[in-house]
């Protein structure tokens, strides 16, 4: 069986590589808490490439407005139809910013439906670790960074009852963007939700 490879999506517009340490951090957590056969490094897949179809979970982030090219839209649509899970995180940690507005519009154009809030009872929050209160808050939300708001939930789009797109404006990209060796200084590992994302993508 081939190991799970964490994939970062490279898209033409925007700074897709703004959180380079997130993949290693999630890989570390997957290895730390699960027995999933995982590759030690992540991969980068252009959004318009069929290489994307090799990965069950794709991570997309950035600060700048997101405008997909036609080929990127088509491939993303194929990816979602084939059962892939796209995790999008707004690296700005703001609300109604340019990344948020443009990315939401692009995703709606691909999926054909707007994103809807993911309820706290969703299996995503119990796929591995149990998050009774839904998506965990980031330190940026708690200490008032950016918009000074705690975003209540993530947003998603479902296909046949399964989440195909998970959209976050909690800025996990900043929260998880550190060397995994520094995880030992945390009282509670803040990347545990990343494990849920991986397990959900692989088992649902």
């Amino acid at each position, binding site marked *: 069986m081939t190991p799970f490879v964490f994939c970062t999506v490279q898209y033409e517009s925007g700074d897709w590589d703004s959180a380079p340490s997130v993949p290693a951090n999630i890989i570390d957590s997957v290895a730390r808490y699960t027995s999933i056969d995982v590759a030690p490094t992540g991969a980068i897949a252009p959004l318009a490439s069929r290489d994307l179809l090799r990965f069950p979970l794709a991570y997309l982030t950035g600060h700048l407005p997101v405008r997909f090219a036609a080929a990127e839209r088509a491939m993303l649509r194929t990816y979602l139809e084939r059962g892939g899970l796209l995790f999008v995180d707004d690296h700005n*940690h703001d609300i109604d910013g340019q990344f948020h507005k443009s990315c939401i519009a692009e995703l709606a154009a691909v999926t054909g439906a707007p994103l809807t809030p993911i309820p706290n009872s969703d299996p995503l929050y119990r796929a591995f670790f149990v998050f009774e209160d839904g998506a965990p808050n980031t330190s940026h939300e708690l200490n008032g960074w950016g918009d000074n708001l705690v975003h209540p939930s993530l947003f998603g789009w479902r296909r046949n009852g399964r989440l195909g797109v998970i959209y976050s404006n909690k800025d996990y990209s900043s929260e998880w*963007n550190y060397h995994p060796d520094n995880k030992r200084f945390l009282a509670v590992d803040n990347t545990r939700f990343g494990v849920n994302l991986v397990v959900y993508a692989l088992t649902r």
Partner: protein
Amino acid sequence: MTALTRLGRVRAEWTAALMARFIAWFALAGCAGSAINYWWQGSETVPRGFIVSGLLILIAGIALLWRWRASRDRVALALWIEGRAPALQYALLTRAEGASDSMVDVLEAQIARVPFERLVRPAIWRPLVPLVATVVVATVLMRTMPQWASLRRTGAVRIYGPSEGRAPSTARSALATVRITVAPPPYTRLRTASLTDAARVSAVVGSRVLVEGAAGDDAVIARLGTDPLSISTASTAWSATLRMPARPTLVTLSSGSRQRAVLLEPVIDSVPEIALRFPARDTVLRVAAGVVPLSAVVRDDFGVAAAWFEVVVSAGEGENFTFRTTTLARRTGLDMRTLTLSASLSLDSLALQPGDLVHVRAVARDGNTVTGPGQSGSDTRAIRIARENEYDSVAVDGAPPPDRLKGLLSQRMLIQLAEALEKRRRTLAREPFVQESQRIARDQNALRRQVGDIVFQRLEDLGAGGEHSHDDGHDHSLMTPAQLLAEAREATTQTGEALDFHGGESPVVAISRPLLEAYNAMWEAGSALSIGDPKSALPHMRAALDAIQRARFAERIYLRGRPKEIVVDLAKVRLAGKTDRIGPGARTARDDEDAPRLARLARFDAALARLASDRDAALLALLTLRAELLAAPGAAAAALGDAADLLRSGRDATDALIAARRALAGPAPVLRPVDAWSVHP
């Protein structure tokens, strides 16, 4: 019984035999016609078998009528009997011709001795035997036709003829003829169209669809998908009106035992298609000056209503961006299927700074007043203004900001704690109040040291020296807090060109100044808190927070180049695994990717099997299958549509059904050739 009476009975028997032969010929002609229809693959409106059957029945009827006419002549019948009963010695013929009264008794006696009825009976009925035998054989063959069909299906020869499974026509059926009138929405400027007995209707979403027919013996019941559809009934006609839905939907009509299905196939009004011609590609400019020509071609299936260029200017980097959005060359009130949009973008007017990004795209909206308007955008082109320090190489990947900056912002939390403590001053005893204040002071000092680490680590490179972090290997005893404070004050009170970042000084100083102010304010706040005076500390704490906020908005410093890729040591990590608070989710297997295709194929085969016995049900199943396939139109959906049209019009649909099945089954697997033994993979 007289001879003439006996002769009349023979004539009646003759007539009965003729009638039987006519019926046999009729049945035989029907079998022949069906067989011709069965084997003949044609596309005539009236099947060829029906024509042949009609001709056979006509010829047989004329011939038998001619024979029956001959039997009405009593003399000719008597002569025919004399030929088959010589013992009569023409007594019957003489009697039939009207013999004289004197001879009647003699003739009657002669005739009475001969049982001519029994002698002529075989001659009367014998011609019927081969006919009946042929009809029996043909009937048996007709009953075995389905078996023939299943055998021939494997040979991919034509399978179904139009005469099979045809529902018996009802003289007064309300569904005998169904007329459909489609009126598209006004914005499409399409004409109203009418169809008769159509299996499917394609129209723009929102079109008004009128389904009507002549009134029959039974009432008409209609359903749109699973919802009932109201029917308006008049004395001579019925009708139903509906709007073309956004998804393929079946309209099912039933009247008595008759059923009819019409598939509504919506034509989706697509959003405008926009091709941005200029700028042709992303660009990095050294100087934000000049005019950039913009050009885009917009196309829409029914008409473009409005179009414009959208320009977004983003300034900043890292975590801090500001955006400005403006539009150019906005054109509204259009009604064109193709539009070329042109404009000029003056970079001077945008007041761009180094590092700014200009995102340009064209946006258009159609005139859809039913489900829209639909709006779309072109690809986005980015025009970037290079920074001065990028002139040697503008293709530099930025590394992330230092993580320590994120920890500095808990100053806000310390302020909240101090404010809360100040509110409890009157209710708390002095000793716990001071203890709590000193605890906040310790946190404040810890935060101050972190700020000092950052500030003086930077200033050290500029020769300013400073406080060192507790784990950097330096001797902290070399600098007392008083010295450190003096250094900080000195640094923060420097003014003039030496700290002017834009004047060519290193940005380190410019960025550090607000942090130094924060450091000073934290020092004062910590001192006040340590003596149990949060009220005095709060202004300094707020000043520190303001300074940190200013530091946030200052330009950040990034390490140059791509950070080193982190390779996780999986074995090491797994040895340190934790298992607390784990709730493994139930795993469910995903569907086989091929399962939907196989399921559709099975449904198609089932519909095909029902085609011979229940044509309407099979047609309904095929139309339902097409409705699902229309989500992603392809060859299978097109072939199914053709087949439905042919079946509804009573024509041969074999080719279309074969094409549909091939499309549903997918391409044949391609086997890879065996690699040569000597080739290394």
